[in-house]
């Protein structure tokens, strides 16, 4: 079995553009739950209008990431395991 941790993607969208304060508050709540579920936050991509966000994590499975989001009360649409494809 390959020993690298799977990458998990979280998709979010917001009715109102989120502010930096919103982001900091959610990040803090999520950060407090990561170790508990063996999850590592890699990076997030935010749309220019601040209504959409895609977050990338490393985790043993997608459910661990769902649990982190729910425990931290961070809203999301979808969570899925991803294969990383990069330029050769």
């Amino acid at each position, binding site marked *: 079995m390959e020993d690298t941790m799977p990458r*998990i993607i979280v998709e979010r969208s917001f009715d109102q553009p989120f502010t930096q304060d919103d982001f900091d508050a959610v990040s803090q709540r999520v950060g407090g739950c990561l170790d508990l579920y063996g999850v590592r936050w890699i990076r997030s991509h935010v749309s220019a209008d601040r209504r959409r966000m895609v977050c990338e994590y490393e985790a043993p499975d997608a*459910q661990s990431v769902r649990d982190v989001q729910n425990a931290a009360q961070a809203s999301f649409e979808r969570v899925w395991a991803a294969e990383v494809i990069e330029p050769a």
Partner: protein
Amino acid sequence: LQLARTAEDRWRECKCLTWLAVIHLERGDAETSLACCEELRPLAARMGESGELPFVRALEALSHMTLHHPNATCDFASAVEQLRAFDSKAHLAYVLNAAAEIAFEGKNFAEAYGAAQSALVAAAEARRVCEEVTSRALLARVLTARGDPAGARGWLDPIQDRVVHREDLSARARSAWLRAAQSLELSVPTKDQTLS
């Protein structure tokens, strides 16, 4: 559970009810576990993408399997497919181990072996040591029951250190391992001993 309900925190309410269902199932009280699942189902269904519903369905099917309800095996297979679709490997390892245990108790050794092997794969992928120990213990017990003690040792030996030295191993995993060791008439090692 009460705190979660007071705070109207549906996800934590769901989690607490799930733990109750698991505790009752592990204590052999399938009827009470089913009652928890009945409460859980609508709650988990409302949580949609939270991924709770497939696990609840699997727990329900396990209780039905314990109670020898018809269709329980089909319902379990369908819940397992859903857990795979949700990439819920830790839950998958847990329910497959539970199914293997039920099959073993019913002397359905081939079924028990298959379920424990699948549980072991999921446990390794999810890095769940307790589930891995439980799977290996079940695989060893099946081989012992089939008269293959050397094969059984092959499943137990690689985890011996982890069982002896890990303080955080669950009571369920430790007890599964002890039963497997006892079925092989092995002495139970302490931190200062190894299996003879």
